[in-house]
Each structure stands twice: as structure tokens, then as C-alpha cells.
């Protein structure tokens, strides 16, 4: 009996999942290249390639000449402050909303212990609390899926015009992201770890407050900081949705071809990103209380150990208070340089009259499913479409029996194109393809760059190798690390949208430019978190397995230890890259985002509604897959 048990344990432990994952990735990449048309003519066509190189040369030349006139510097500084305050306000609002919504969306918190087993356990209407949980998840999905610029246009109806609208729009989007991740973190805390709190008779709220929350707090905190940085980095997106700031100005100046001004603005953006990086590191270090961490601040007295948490919180709060003040009273960017209270419109939310104006967007909730083309709904309309020859006659040419003939599939696809919803679904292949290829390239590059980027392997390696490197070798390693960090900083410091603009100038608008932009940004974001996980590994674990080469130690020890974390982060990044693919569609890459904005801007709300439904479905799908794969575990 015991023997059989061991055998089955071995059987389940065989790592077939890795192979399955590899096959899935291969299929996805194949699908990405098959589903949409990629234009590689810049590489294959010599004349086009030459022109692209020429343009890239021009581009680099124009970047070497920043505009440092005092008035432009002053203006850039104003814009930087505007960007920072909008991003901080958005994140602050999002943290509060997301915390509450995540409590509802987390199964462990909202539903708690239950006797349902098997398939019934995932049925949303099994109990009132489970229904609430499903509802909260749906709200988060919608918040996340609707692009922030669409929120901005909708919110204009309620909040009026002004930078607060942009901040709130961004905040709603960030709420969706944070809420999802918080609730996943809480769900993935092992039930056994807070069993004793339940056993003592605590209800769901107390179990949450004293059991689940503290156990996941470190993950929650570090993700919040990461997101706050991202919000600041997404200056370009804030700009596009009406938050003004650096992003809007950069886009405008790129459009005008004023590269000197763009360079100055980019330098300010980079400076802001760098400060955000450093500030979040500072907060992180102050709040971290893991004495086993190799780089933990060693506590000297009780007072200083207590003070650290306060310093971290006070620092964060100072920024928040400043942003609210700046947004409300400090911003002197008004028409006559007078300060104007941009917070006023928020009061509108309290009066029902303004909220009623949302009725304007009613049609968004009535998506057009084009039933007439597939013979559903009003018979008259069906007949009209049929007479025009624009209805779907799936099996007119090939019956379902000829499914083995490729020509049949082509003919079916052609017929399906008459159905609007099919065209909408097809347009989703553009952001998906970009996200798949971009994430894969970015993550692979990030893994390679993690080695020179990691502090543990470059500067502190003697702690586990036992060598004492020549000073020159040390300098070399230091240079290597600085270079790697510089690459990481620049590639994540410049938002995807701006990368996309640059690559559009090089490759022309299309998937290629968008994919490279996504890959580059992914590289920057991922290399940071990847090397952070590597640096968090206690050095004694390297010591045991070190065999003379730092590179092998990295590949065979550090890699596998942090592999699961890397995959978790990569999947998060994939999800956000799909959304970014939609946003890039708006700026000229095409696909789902492009058609959505087009219909939205032309007030065809029913059609825009259909695109919105597909966006939400896409987000729900990826979210449910990541939840079922249990990718987000709390790494205690």
C-alpha cells in the first residue's frame, strides 16, 4: 500500500507541465504569426531598409540636441509636477478602492470556509456571498478592461473638464489592476496558515484582518509600490486621457517634429522615473522587516525599528498630501497663471443631477451583436441583409463534412466576416499577437540581462564564491552592472507609447513597431523584478552549489530558485501587455483599440459597446486562466 502511494507521488511529480507550457507557448507564437499579417519589409526590402536606417540616423542626430532654454526648462518642470501629482492621486484613490473591492473579490475573504466541493465550488450562484464575490470580480474586470482614455471621455460628462478627470480615469484603471492582484494574493495564502484564527471563533472579517492580510501584506505592499511607479511612468497615457503633463506634451512635440524639445521632455521623464525608482526603493527598505534578507537594514534599537515603518508611511503620505494640494490649489498652469482649484468638480459626484448625465452613454450598454447577419432577431432586417447578400451563409459552398479541406476553412472565414461580431473578435488578434511575441522577447532578454544587472552576482559575489577579485575585474563588473542598469532604466523609464512612436518613425506604423515597443518596455520592467528576486536569495544557497563559475551558478542555482517568481511576474506582465496592445492600437498600430476609438469618437456607441464587450471578455479570460493556474502565490 505504502509502495503504491510512493509510486503515485513520483508519477504526479514528473515535470510534464513544463513541456505542456512550452508547447502552449509555441502554439501561441505560431498563432500570433499566422492570425495577423506581419510586415517585415523593412528587413527584406533593401531600399526600405536603407531609408529606415537613414531615418533612424536623423532621429539619433536630432536627439543629441536638447532644448535647454530657461523657459522651456521651467515649462518642463511644471509639466513634471503635473504628471507626478496626477499619478500619485490616481494611485492613492486606487489603493483605497481596490482594497475594498478586493475584499469582495477574494474567495478566501468574502466567501470563507464552505462545504461545497468539486465543480459546485466554482459555481457563482451557490450562495449569496459567492455571488457577491463573482460580482466584485466582474467589476474589477470591467475597470481594468475599459481603457483609461475611454473612462476619461465618459467621466467628462460627470466631472467636467480638467486634469482631475484624467487622474480619476487613470485611478479607475489602476483600481482594476490592484484589486485583481490583491485578491489573488489573499486567495493564495494557504488556508492552514490562518486555521487557528478561525478555530478561535473569528468571523470572516477578523480572519481577514488578523490572518490573511498580515500573511500577504509584504506582497501587497511591494506590488502597490511597483504599480505606483508604473502610474508615474505611464505619464504618456495620463496625458492622452486629459491629465496633461509630460506625456501629452511629448506626443504633441513629436507630432510637430520639435526633437530638441522632445529630448528635454524625455530627460525630465527619465529623471522623474529615476526618482520614483529610488523613492520606492527607499520606502521598500524602510517597510521591510525580514531580518534574514541579505540586504536588510540591521535594526539597532527598538525606537529605530518602530520608526522605520512610520518614516516609510509618512514619506508616502507627504507625497499624497502634496499631490492633492498641487492639484487643488498649487497648480498655476491656468490661463492667466492664476491657481485654479481643479478638485471642485469632484463635488459634482455628490449631486445626483450630474450623475444622471451618464445617460448619455447608455448606448454603450446596448452592444450591437448584428443578429441580422446570422439570421436572428427582426425578420424584416434579416431579409434586408439577406437581399443585400451580406448575411452569413456558412455552408453555402462547403458543407461541414469537408472540414478537412483548408479551402473550406478559408471560405467559412470569408463568410463569417459578414458578421460584425466576428470582425470584432478578429481584431482582438492584433493586441494579442503583439502581447505574445512582445512578452516572450522581453522576458527572454530580461533573463539574459538579469545576470549583469544583479548586485549579488556582480558586486557581492565574493561573499559566496570566496574569491578576491582583482580591483580591475571589480571595476569591470561594476561597469557591466551600471551599463545593465542603465539599459533597464531607460527601457522602462520611457513609456511604451513613446517607444511605439519612435519605432513607428523607424518601421512605419504596424505590428512590428508595437511589438518591439512592448518587448523593450517588458525587458526594462522585468529585469528589475527578476534581479530583485535573485538578490533576495540568501547567499548561503549559492555557497553550497558554487562550482567556480558565476555564470553557471546563476543559470543552475539562481534561475531555478526564482523561476516560479519570474513566471508569476511574466504572466502579470503579459496581461498588462495585452491591454497595452489595445492602447497602442489607438496610437496607430491598428486592431481592437483602433476600431474601438474610431467608433467611440464617432459616437457609434452600440458598435463601440461590442468592442468593449470583447475587451472585457479578453481580460476575464486571461484573469480566470491565471487564477486557475494559481500563478500568484505569496512567497513567504
Amino acid at each position: 500500500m505504502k509502495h503504491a502511494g510512493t509510486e503515485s507521488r513520483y508519477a504526479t511529480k514528473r515535470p510534464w507541465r513544463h513541456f505542456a507550457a512550452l508547447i502552449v507557448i509555441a502554439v501561441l507564437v505560431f498563432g500570433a504569426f499566422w492570425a495577423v499579417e506581419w510586415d517585415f519589409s523593412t528587413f527584406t526590402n533593401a531600399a526600405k531598409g536603407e531609408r529606415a536606417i537613414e531615418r533612424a540616423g536623423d532621429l539619433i542626430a536630432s536627439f543629441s540636441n536638447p532644448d535647454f532654454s530657461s523657459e522651456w526648462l521651467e515649462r518642463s518642470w511644471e509639466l513634471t509636477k503635473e504628471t507626478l501629482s496626477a499619478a500619485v492621486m490616481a494611485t492613492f484613490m486606487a489603493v483605497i478602492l481596490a482594497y475594498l473591492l478586493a475584499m469582495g473579490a477574494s474567495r478566501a475573504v468574502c466567501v470563507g470556509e464552505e462545504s461545497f466541493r468539486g465543480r459546485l465550488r466554482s459555481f457563482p450562484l451557490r450562495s449569496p456571498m459567492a455571488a457577491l464575490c463573482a460580482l466584485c470580480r466582474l467589476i474589477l474586470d470591467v475597470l481594468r478592461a475599459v481603457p483609461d482614455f475611454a473612462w476619461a471621455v465618459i467621466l467628462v460628462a460627470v466631472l467636467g473638464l480638467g486634469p482631475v478627470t484624467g487622474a480619476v480615469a487613470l485611478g479607475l484603471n489602476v483600481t482594476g489592476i490592484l484589486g485583481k492582484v490583491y485578491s489573488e494574493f489573499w486567495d493564495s495564502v494557504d488556508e492552514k496558515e490562518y486555521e487557528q484564527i478561525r478555530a478561535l471563533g473569528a468571523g470572516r472579517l477578523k480572519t481577514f484582518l488578523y490572518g490573511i492580510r498580515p500573511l500577504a501584506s509584504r506582497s501587497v505592499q511591494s506590488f502597490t509600490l511597483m504599480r505606483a511607479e508604473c502610474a508615474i511612468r505611464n505619464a504618456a497615457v495620463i496625458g492622452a486621457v486629459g491629465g496633461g503633463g509630460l506625456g501629452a506634451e511629448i506626443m504633441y512635440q513629436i507630432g510637430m517634429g520639435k526633437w530638441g524639445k522632445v529630448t528635454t521632455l524625455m530627460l525630465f521623464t527619465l529623471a522623474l522615473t529615476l526618482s520614483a525608482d529610488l523613492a520606492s526603493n527607499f520606502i521598500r527598505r524602510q517597510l521591510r522587516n525580514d531580518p534574514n534578507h541579505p540586504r536588510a537594514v540591521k535594526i539597532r534599537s527598538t525606537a529605530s525599528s518602530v520608526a522605520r515603518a512610520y518614516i516609510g508611511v509618512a514619506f508616502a503620505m507627504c507625497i499624497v498630501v502634496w499631490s492633492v494640494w498641487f492639484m487643488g490649489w498649487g497648480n498655476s498652469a491656468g490661463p492667466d497663471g492664476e491657481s485654479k482649484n481643479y478638485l471642485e468638480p469632484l463635488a459634482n459626484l455628490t449631486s445626483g443631477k450630474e450623475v444622471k448625465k451618464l445617460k448619455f452613454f447608455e448606448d454603450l450598454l446596448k452592444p450591437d451583436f448584428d443578429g441580422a447577419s446570422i439570421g436572428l432577431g427582426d425578420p424584416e432586417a434579416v431579409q434586408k441583409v439577406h437581399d443585400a447578400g451580406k448575411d452569413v451563409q456558412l455552408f453555402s459552398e462547403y458543407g461541414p463534412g469537408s472540414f478537412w479541406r483548408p479551402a473550406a476553412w478559408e471560405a467559412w472565414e470569408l463568410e463569417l466576416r459578414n458578421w460584425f461580431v466576428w470582425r470584432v473578435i478578429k481584431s482582438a488578434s492584433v493586441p494579442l499577437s503583439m502581447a505574445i511575441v512582445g512578452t516572450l522577447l522581453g522576458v527572454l532578454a530580461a533573463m539574459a540581462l538579469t545576470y549583469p544587472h544583479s548586485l549579488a552576482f556582480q558586486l557581492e559575489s565574493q561573499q559566496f564564491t570566496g574569491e578576491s577579485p582583482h580591483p580591475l575585474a571589480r571595476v569591470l563588473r561594476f561597469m557591466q552592472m551600471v551599463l545593465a542598469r542603465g539599459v533597464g532604466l531607460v527601457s522602462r523609464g520611457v513609456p511604451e507609447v513613446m517607444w511605439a512612436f519612435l519605432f513607428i518613425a523607424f518601421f512605419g506604423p504596424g505590428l512590428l513597431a508595437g511589438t518591439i515597443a512592448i518587448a523593450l518596455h517588458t525587458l526594462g520592467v522585468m529585469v528589475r523584478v527578476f534581479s530583485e528576486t535573485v538578490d533576495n536569495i540568501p547567499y548561503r544557497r549559492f555557497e553550497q552549489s558554487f562550482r567556480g563559475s558565476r555564470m553557471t551558478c546563476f543559470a543552475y542555482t539562481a534561475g531555478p530558485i526564482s523561476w516560479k517568481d519570474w513566471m508569476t511576474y511574466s504572466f502579470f506582465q503579459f496581461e498588462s501587455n495585452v491591454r497595452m496592445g489595445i492602447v497602442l492600437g489607438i496610437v496607430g498600430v491598428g486592431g481592437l483599440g483602433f476600431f474601438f476609438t474610431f467608433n467611440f469618437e464617432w459616437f457609434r456607441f452600440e458598435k463601440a459597446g461590442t468592442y468593449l464587450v470583447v475587451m472585457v471578455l479578453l481580460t476575464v479570460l486571461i484573469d480566470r486562466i491565471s487564477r486557475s493556474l494559481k500563478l500568484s502565490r505569496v512567497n513567504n
Partner: protein
Amino acid sequence: MKRVLWLMIALVGIFSAAACGSGNEAANGNSAAGGGGGAPEKLIITAIPDDNADKLKEHFGNVAKYLEGKIGMPVEYMHVENYAASVTALANGQAHMSWMGGVTTVQADQQTEGGAVVVCCRDIDKKFKTYFIGNKEAGAKKVDDLKMLSEVAKGKDFTFGSKGSTSGHLMPRFFFTEQSGSKPEDVFGKVGYSGSHDKTLAQVADGTFMVGALNYATYDKASQELKDKAPIIYTTPTYVDYSFVARKDLGDELIGKIRKAMLEIDGSTDEGKKILSFMKAGKFVEADMKDWDGIRNVMESGVDIGG
């Protein structure tokens, strides 16, 4: 974390107190911008953001100041970040008057269900036109009509301007489809949207796209070098474009006063010169919503971009 929570709660308190504190002022402002009938206490104007935000703020700040003196009530300019938002603001009564493009003028009329009225437009708006331009190096030649263009430029890359633009997208697409009988997507290799008129010119000149369409005002004031690289190959018939649109519920009296003030602007005063030169106009002229019926028909017949 508990401390964090308490601090956050405290801050929410402060935050909401601040919001309430300013609530009184806001309430006054709202009634001014309220969607209700009758003349408001403060006239709020806005514009589609087809130029740099600062330039627009300065320019429409001047317009607001000028109107304030003429109609005897406070006028304020509010900036919006995209075309759709300006229509929404007008339709919801958050703005009373707006500087609109051809498409947005019609949209404003549609979204207010006929509650919008054209105050005036520039002299140049009544005979707006679009140029089709081609890349010189690639051997662009003048064509008689767009049918001919669709034959000689088959398979080449083509770009419009912004997808919401009248002169950069809607009208050239309309004329092309009408004359050649087929969609640009079916004729050209790749159909792009450069984002603005000057970008269209730059991208056709440098060969990113072989053919493009842009509004004539932008082309005419471009540098000779660019014009040489991207000559005009076809000029469309004329159509109407920009206008000042106001909400009807401002009342005939107020609208009349505004119209009179706008039509009075000429180059004799510094103020007027500034306004007109920014708008590249000789003067403002009277116009009626009916003039935009052509664009309305094009819009209602459906613009099929393939999505």
C-alpha cells in the same frame, strides 16, 4: 500595515473635507454651467484640440476676453483633450459654445438632438478642400480624378491624417469612394492614419507613405522643400469645415449678441488682428447648420473603415 490603514482613513477624511469645503464654490460654478435653459451667469467656451494646448489656451483666452467686453458677462475657456470630449461637454451643458470641426459640428447637432446652432464660421471654412499628395521620388504625377489615382497608385501605401478629422479623413475618403467606386483599403497596400495634417505631409515627403491626403491650409503654409518632395496630385471639390457652435438654450438674444460680436472682429484692432491671424482667417461670416448637411449626409451614409 494597521498603522498604514489608520493613516489612510485619516487622510480620506481630510481629503473629503477638502472636497466638501470647496463644494460651495463649485455649486455656484455648476449652476452657471448647468444644462438648464435660459442665459447662464458665466459663458463657458471650449474647442476641439487640433493644436498645442498652450496655444489654444492663449488664443481662446483672447477670444473669451474679447467676448466678455462685448456681451457683458464673464466668459471662460475650458480646455479638453480630445474631439469627442468637446462634443460631450457641449451636449451635456458643461460648455455653452465650442469651436468645432466639420464632423464635430454635425456630431454636436446630433448629440444635442437639434439643440445646437452655428454662430458663425471663418470666411475660409465655406470653401475648404483637401489635397492628395504623392512622393516625388516615386514618380508622383497629377491625376484627373481619383478613379485614375486608384489605377496608378494601386498597391502603394496611403495615409490619412487623424481618423476623426474632416479634411484629413472623412472627406478624402468620401471623394475617393465616390469617384473610384472602391474602398481605399481595397485599393492601396496599407492605409495608415498619421495623426495630423503636418505629419501626413512629412511622411509622404520622406517616403514612409507614397500617397496621402491633407487639408489645404496646412499644405499651403508648409516649407517649399517639403512641397517639392511631395507635390499635389489632386485637389478635391470644396466643402464646409470649422464653425463656432452654441447651445440653442442660451436664448436667441444672447446668441445674437455673440454672433454680432464675432462678426465685428476685423484687423483694425490689435485684439482682432491676434484672433484672426491665429485662425488664418480674413473675418468671420454668418453660417447656418444647413451648410453642414453635405457632411451630415456623408456621415450618415456610413464610413466603412473595415471594423
